[in-house]
């Protein structure tokens, strides 16, 4: 897997700060789990967070250190290592969609287009979903009322800004409009986070938009 499109630095920064809306954090964490280069960046940015954390003026703590069991066996064992996938789902997504993309309970949106909504915590205003586009099909051209981050999980797509393959991220700002076209052979499965409704351009697309729930 050769990744050529990465998230914008300000997205990585917000992610390392733990300040991203959950839907975006999910896409970022999944990309980071696939991309050694962004993992390295993230670790540098965590040092930035630590430096700011270190410069906070301490607040005195009222209660003493918790009394902990004296048995050494209680300490240091760490957590169970995260599950590794036997399928094609990146490790970060295993808890929410299982191991195989083919086993996702897809809902048909329109000819050639399928989706699966991923539930977020209460109160999150973002939207996280998987979109599956059959070979050669396109999503209707759309703009965004907010930000959108898309990660390709399988296959590829192209739009006016380039070709996006497995592992690639399109980190789009509000002003971008695009009409992603899935690869003619493999099609495309993407993980998409948005914080605003997508805005479709054509009248027909606007008509079907309520059905999509996009």
């Amino acid at each position: 897997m050769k990744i050529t499109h990465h998230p914008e630095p300000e997205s990585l920064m917000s992610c390392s700060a733990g300040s991203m809306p959950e839907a975006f954090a999910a896409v970022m964490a999944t990309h980071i789990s696939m991309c050694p280069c962004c993992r390295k960046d993230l670790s540098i940015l965590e040092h930035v967070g630590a430096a700011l954390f270190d410069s906070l003026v301490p607040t005195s703590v009222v209660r003493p250190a918790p009394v902990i069991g004296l048995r050494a066996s209680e300490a240091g064992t760490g957590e169970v290592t995260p599950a590794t996938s036997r399928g094609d789902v990146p490790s970060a997504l295993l808890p929410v969609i299982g191991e195989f993309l083919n086993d996702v309970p897809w809902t048909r949106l329109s000819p050639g287009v399928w989706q699966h909504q991923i539930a977020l915590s209460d109160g999150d205003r973002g939207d996280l979903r998987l979109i599956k586009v059959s070979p050669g099909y396109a999503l209707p051209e759309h703009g965004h009322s907010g930000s959108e981050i898309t990660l390709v999980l399988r296959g590829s797509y192209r739009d006016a800004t380039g070709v996006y393959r497995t592992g690639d991220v399109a980190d789009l700002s509000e002003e971008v409009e695009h009409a992603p076209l899935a690869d003619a052979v493999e099609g495309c499965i993407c993980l998409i986070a948005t914080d605003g409704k997508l805005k479709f351009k054509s009248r027909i697309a606007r008509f079907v938009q309520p059905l999509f729930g996009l």
Partner: protein
Amino acid sequence: MSPHLTVARPDGRARNPLGPKLMADFLQRIAERGDVEAFRKLFQAYAPRVKSYMMRQGADANTAEELAQETLLTVWRKAGLYSGEKGSATTWIFTIARNLRIDRLRRELTWLPLPDGHDEEPSADKLPDELLAEQERKVRVQAALAALPADQHEVVALSYIEGLSHSEIAGRLGLPLGTVKSRMRLAYHKIRESLEDLK
């Protein structure tokens, strides 16, 4: 600069009285033999900062205190995952506090794993030049942060310390979203540049 921002710049800050080497040793001792005394020292050094962090992230004093206790308990439980080669003890504890805040204060799933928890082996003894590199990196990050223009430092601090998203920062400062993003991007490039020749 916003009145909400009171992150001390490196010159005037309250310094951690215990050095990074000592902190890493404490973690090692906890991991290897459940050393309760090392844990107490680590608690004294970090719990007050974690409490401040949680309060800046919107927790009241009581909740912040509870979360500080819990952060340090997590340090105790997960000490075996700490890998000295990859990060300082402070960075590791910061990521634990960050994840706990997402989980408890925002009640959201924490998507990012703790560093070194998933594709690294648990720590072995550190070589002296790795410790030096760690110290050097820390100094450079602090210097790069201190050298940022005030408007860039502000958005970075609001993100890390107050836990605000890009659009929340834009709202707080009355700036267009694009301006917030470009200030963060500039800050990122300056920090990266200052570390360019470090491995």
